[in-house]
């Protein structure tokens, strides 16, 4: 059996943790949203679901790697198998979100004018765009979470703080260079309702590129992790 598949099966040995928890959390948040009721206000409840993918990515390294290596997985196969599973989960979850969004549209916000699965600007287009954007977003957060887990396992809390600091510095540098080059016009302004020149699909492309960076970074970092 392929080593990556073994790792994926290892993660699914307790499927409720991987498959059930994010959806149970989403159901809970949705229930709270419904209970607060039909004022059409968007409360970003879906963000919790996306956040769960980040947390799951962190945990899959922090908690599952040591026993995985004991069972004979290599670091590379563990990383690839875990990422494969996370990306697959994102693909399916994105489709479900697109479906739920279609239902929400078709039922006038679940009959209560609720806007839960329609996120302004980001997830508010046709079903395939919602699928693609949510898939890429979920996969990005999962892989990003994995990278955090790897950094924490390899260098501990100090390493994690340094990792965050480097990202903040990079973000500031990119923002500075971008504004200096006259790119300010491309900044998103969804809250004000102004048309953004960077479309949701453009944003999806940027996130996909960042996902590839995270994948490469995680793969490079895990090579010398010890347990």
């Amino acid at each position, binding site marked *: *059996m392929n*080593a990556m598949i*073994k790792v994926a*099966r*290892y993660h699914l*040995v*307790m499927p*409720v*943790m991987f498959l059930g928890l994010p959806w149970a959390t989403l159901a809970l948040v949705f229930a709270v949203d419904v209970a607060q009721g039909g004022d059409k206000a968007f409360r970003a409840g879906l963000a919790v679901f996306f956040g769960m993918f980040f947390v799951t990515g962190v945990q899959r390294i922090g*908690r*599952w790697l*040591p*026993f995985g*290596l*004991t*069972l*004979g*997985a*290599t*670091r*590379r*196969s563990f990383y690839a198998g875990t990422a494969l599973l996370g990306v697959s989960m994102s693909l399916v979850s994105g489709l479900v979100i697109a479906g739920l969004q279609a239902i929400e549209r078709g039922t006038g916000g679940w009959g209560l004018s609720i806007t839960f699965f329609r996120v302004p600007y980001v997830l508010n287009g046709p079903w395939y765009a919602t699928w693609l954007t949510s898939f890429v977003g979920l996969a990005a957060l999962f892989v990003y979470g994995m990278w955090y887990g790897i950094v924490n396992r390899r260098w501990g809390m100090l390493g994690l703080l340094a990792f965050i600091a480097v990202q903040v510095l990079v973000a500031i540098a990119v923002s500075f260079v971008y504004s200096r080059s006259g790119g300010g016009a491309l900044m998103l302004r969804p809250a004000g309702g102004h048309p953004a020149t960077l479309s949701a699909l453009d944003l999806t492309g940027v996130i996909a590129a960042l996902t590839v960076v995270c994948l490469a970074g995680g793969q490079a970092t895990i*090579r*010398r992790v*010890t*347990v």
Partner: protein
Amino acid sequence: MTPAISATGLTRKYYDQVALDDVHLAIGAGTITGLLGRNGAGKTTLLRILGGQEFPSSGSVQVLGAAPAENQDVLRRLVLVREDQTYPDYQGYPNFKVSHALRAASFFYPCWDADLASSLLEDFRLPANKAIKSLSRGQRSSLGITIGLAARAEVTLFDEPYAGLDAVARQIFYDRLLADYADFPRTVLLSTHLIDEAAALFENVVVIDRGRVMLDTAADGLRGMATTVSGPVLAVNSFTGGRPVWERRGLGSQASAVIVGQISPEDRERARSLGLDLTPLSLQQLVVQASGGSAGAGAVTGRASA
């Protein structure tokens, strides 16, 4: 013959601490070897490197003819049972159970024996549906042993596998290990502090102290390697004259001395005529000597003086 496990100039440093210092080692295939030494001697570090979980600072290791780190072909034929093994258990729900751990192990080991695993759980009285986070220390050890034996890996590394186990469970481990080893020979490297208890298992013994291999020899060669001579002071002195002695102790007119070397039938006859008792040193006492536990420590490692 290519050894199943070998190390050449293996060194592992953690900042200014040297965990392993120029270790050279060769362990033959199809043997049970005891890896012995004091706490912090470097046993766990060595096993982790052999299991591909840690990296050497310098030098090299080979398991089944290749470096184990990131080598899928080696790692799927190797199992490392650690005393401090962590499992993916969570606070609260859901619980990672014994059955989850065994099922996961079955995915990875091509020779996994589920029947053996079930029978070991029964012997250890370990319920398969029990959450790992609620296991006692001994029960966690039982789980590790179950995985280690049922994996039937060509190279089986046990790092203090029975911490917290009661005497009955330890005996079960020894019996099951020997029985399964007889049916399915493999290379076993077992680190333990309960030396005399496990001594009968060992075909070879490796003693590590402060990261260095102090002793690497066949267990049979060690048995009878040193003997305690005790009796009247003058008789002990007469008997030990000209022999390498590790240690001398005296109390009034009585004395004892640990001498190195085999005792011949003539020696036994002479000791009897002098009214001396001869007691072979146990493996544990030998390890104490090799690990610097007494003034004559150097003798075991070949630095004895007459």
